[in-house]
């Protein structure tokens, strides 16, 4: 595609400019994706190089090191102990003992079962004495997968610690060769509140994140490649096992099941995904512009009681969302207050189908979401609006710009520039906005065609509420939920990457500064 210079671009008419920008955006996508693969390739190459360097370094340490260093390769911390760093040496040794003990007692078993996820399911045996069938539970696929992953984490931690141990010997030899003294245990402890203070501070948060976020996510990603569901719970009824890419094939296949009115998974997924994107778009931008409008109205010169207006709106943030959302949802019900009011005024004959008709329901959720979102946006935009240099407006007024022109030429570009990253996170946040949809409609009204594929799917269901329904539904198809979760991640990641790279506040950081 032809690239215009700035001067040529300015000569274009408005429509041409828009077209040009859209085209250049579209043309940029392949190169962005190419860049992504390039980055990936560089990452792999870098990792390979790093491994090669490390191996060489370890080898050299071994060859050139003294006997203390050499023995440390087998007995971790030996070098430290032999050179008088008792605290470090003991910690290394303790870690090695714990690791070996764990691997012999448990880790080896979990690891060996990981490829099969368990061999013997629960068995029933006839018990003569009690004259009943007694079930014996054997392997536990769930635990095998969980502890298998944990064991792998542990092994990685061990390899890393071993490498640190080797490096320390190398360093110690160097330091001693120059005639300096090594750090004592006391120095080490002191450095934990000084040079190494960040390690102390991060230890607690990172442990939490690894155990409660990283481990579960790795586990759930792996579940997508198994048949873990309500009838294969891995212990009480049937074991579950690896099924390869079958679940992805199911989710992305266009062939519908048997029976009239059934729909393929891919079509259902596509339908829900497109509503999710539409919803995220409207939820983000209606809130953004209306919130900005309210903020500008309150900020306007000559408006009194600014604090009162703001407080009224902010107060609604304080009330827990589930109360307001559930209550508002009932207000719009067939026998709710809104219909009751409209009918008593004689404006309508019959109750309006706020939650019964697909289109009505979708529009109603978006409108109620405005009610939820405006106070936040009002707060956020108020602060930014006040930061816009006032002389910009003054010179615009002298040049004879009217209010609308000032808005489109100064306020809006400034706001979009500053809040670009916020808009992106708010868009992806809305894609996963479980509370608003689930508490307002629970996904209703039901979409019969889509429901034929997986569980009850409604017209207002987002991918995230669908995922929840799959998990808690009668069949508990965890593997399917996991596939949906991975696809949500992919969609969110792609949108974030593409938009983030196109954001002007990232590209031209100097504008407006």
């Amino acid at each position, binding site marked *: 595609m032809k690239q215009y210079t700035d001067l040529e671009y300015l000569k274009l008419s408005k429509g041409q400019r828009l077209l040009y920008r859209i085209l250049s955006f579209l043309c940029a996508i392949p190169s962005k994706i190419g860049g992504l693969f390039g980055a990936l390739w560089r990452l792999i190459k870098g990792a390979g190089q790093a491994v090669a360097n490390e191996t060489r370094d370890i080898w050299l340490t071994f060859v050139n090191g003294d006997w203390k260093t050499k023995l440390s390769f087998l007995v971790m911390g030996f070098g430290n102990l032999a050179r008088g760093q008792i605290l470090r040496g003991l910690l290394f040794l303790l870690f090695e003992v714990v690791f070996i003990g764990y691997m012999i007692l448990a880790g080896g078993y979990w690891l060996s079962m990981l490829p099969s996820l368990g061999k013997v399911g629960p068995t029933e045996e006839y018990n003569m004495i009690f004259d009943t069938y007694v079930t014996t539970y054997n392997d536990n696929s769930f635990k095998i997968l969980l502890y298998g992953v944990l064991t792998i984490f542990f092994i990685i931690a061990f390899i890393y610690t071993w490498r640190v141990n080797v490096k320390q010997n190398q360093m110690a030899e160097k330091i001693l060769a120059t005639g300096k003294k090594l750090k004592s245990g006391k120095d080490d402890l002191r450095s934990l509140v000084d040079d190494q203070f960040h390690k102390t501070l991060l230890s607690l948060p990172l442990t939490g994140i690894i155990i409660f976020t990283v481990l579960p996510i790795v586990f759930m990603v792996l579940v997508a490649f198994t048949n873990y569901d309500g009838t294969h719970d891995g212990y009480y009824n049937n074991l579950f096992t690896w099924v390869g890419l079958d679940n992805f094939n199911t989710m992305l296949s266009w062939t519908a099941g048997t029976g009239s009115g059934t729909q393929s998974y891919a079509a259902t997924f596509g339908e829900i995904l497109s509503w999710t994107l539409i919803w995220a778009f409207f939820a983000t931008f209606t809130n953004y512009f209306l919130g900005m409008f309210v903020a500008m109205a309150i900020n306007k010169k000559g408006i009194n009681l600014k604090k009162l207006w703001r407080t009224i709106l902010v107060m609604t943030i304080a009330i827990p969302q589930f109360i307001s959302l559930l*209550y508002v949802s009932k207000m719009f019900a067939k026998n709710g207050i809104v219909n*009751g009011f409209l009918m008593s005024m004689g404006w309508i004959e019959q109750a309006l189908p706020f939650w019964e008709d697909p289109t009505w329901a979708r529009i109603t959720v978006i409108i109620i979401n405005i009610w939820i979102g405006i106070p936040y946006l009002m707060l956020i935009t108020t602060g930014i609006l006040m930061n816009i240099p006032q002389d910009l407006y003054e010179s615009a007024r002298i040049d004879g710009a009217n209010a609308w022109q000032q808005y489109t030429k100064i306020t809006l570009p400034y706001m979009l520039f500053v809040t670009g990253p916020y808009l992106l996170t708010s868009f992806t946040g809305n894609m996963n906005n479980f509370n608003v949809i689930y508490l307002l409609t629970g996904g209703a009204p039901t979409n019969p065609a889509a429901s034929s594929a997986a569980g009850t799917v409604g017209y207002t269901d987002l991918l995230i509420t669908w995922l929840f329904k799959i998990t808690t539904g009668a069949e508990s198809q965890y593997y399917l939920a996991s596939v949906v979760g991975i696809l949500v991640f992919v969609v969110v990641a792609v949108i974030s990457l593409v938009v983030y790279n196109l954001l002007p506040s990232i590209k031209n950081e100097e504008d407006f500064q």
Partner: protein
Amino acid sequence: MSEMQNSRRHMGLKASRTLANTAIYAFLIAISIIWLIPFVCIFLQSFRVESTHQVGYVIPQQWGFDNYINLFQTDFPRWYMNTFIAALVTAVFQTIIVLCMSYTLSRFRFKMRKPLMRLMLILGMFPGMLTMIILYRVLKDLGMTQANSVPGLILVYVASSGMGYYVSKGFFDTIPKSLDEAARVDGATRFQVLKKIILPLSKPIVIYTILTAFMAPWGDFVFARYIAFGASAGKNVAVGLYDWLNKDQISKCYTMFCAGGVLVAIPVTVLFMCLQKYYVEGVTGGAVKG
């Protein structure tokens, strides 16, 4: 002549400005009413005595405290305590964790800093709800589900709270680094810098973090529902009140739901309004830094 024209134009401008301001006042009054109506309705209906189901009018025909009295015949006090304890403990620990995380990422430059931040950004793109399947089973093995759900809930809320470091990191970034450096030159350790210099300056962000951490458990619905798993003693207010609006319960419990909602909303709202200033600072600061 020109003076006349000028003053007439002036009058015109003034008139149009008054008109615009009147329109804005009308708009502001209208949205204030729209924003307050649901809360006024919920408040009024909690005093309705003549019927317990949904009706198409707002002002009760018979007033009374029956709904509030009935609340104490149900498990509501238990739910309330569950939520309150969870919120209190979460607020304390989450604040410690978030501040550790954000302070470190703002002040220290170490090798793993950038990869760590990127990793957390990527982890944040996974729908967190997915992990509740495994967390539920693990917590169940530990005996922290159903009736004993509170410790389990606290664990889940607190453990991964380090991921939400953005707002407070933005705050710490605004404290000049020269303060730290001066103290370091005078021989203070990193820990002393944090204790003696940073913490006294961080009151707004500490209060903001406590406030948001305290408010979140009152509104949590998904995890709480999954972990309580139908056991009434383990529900929090959100789950308990949600279940009252089921198809088969709503005709009996609708006004009680309103009363419960009022009881939940009042303390949280009062606390929020008292600390509103800090909340506003946090929200506006957080958005600009992205």
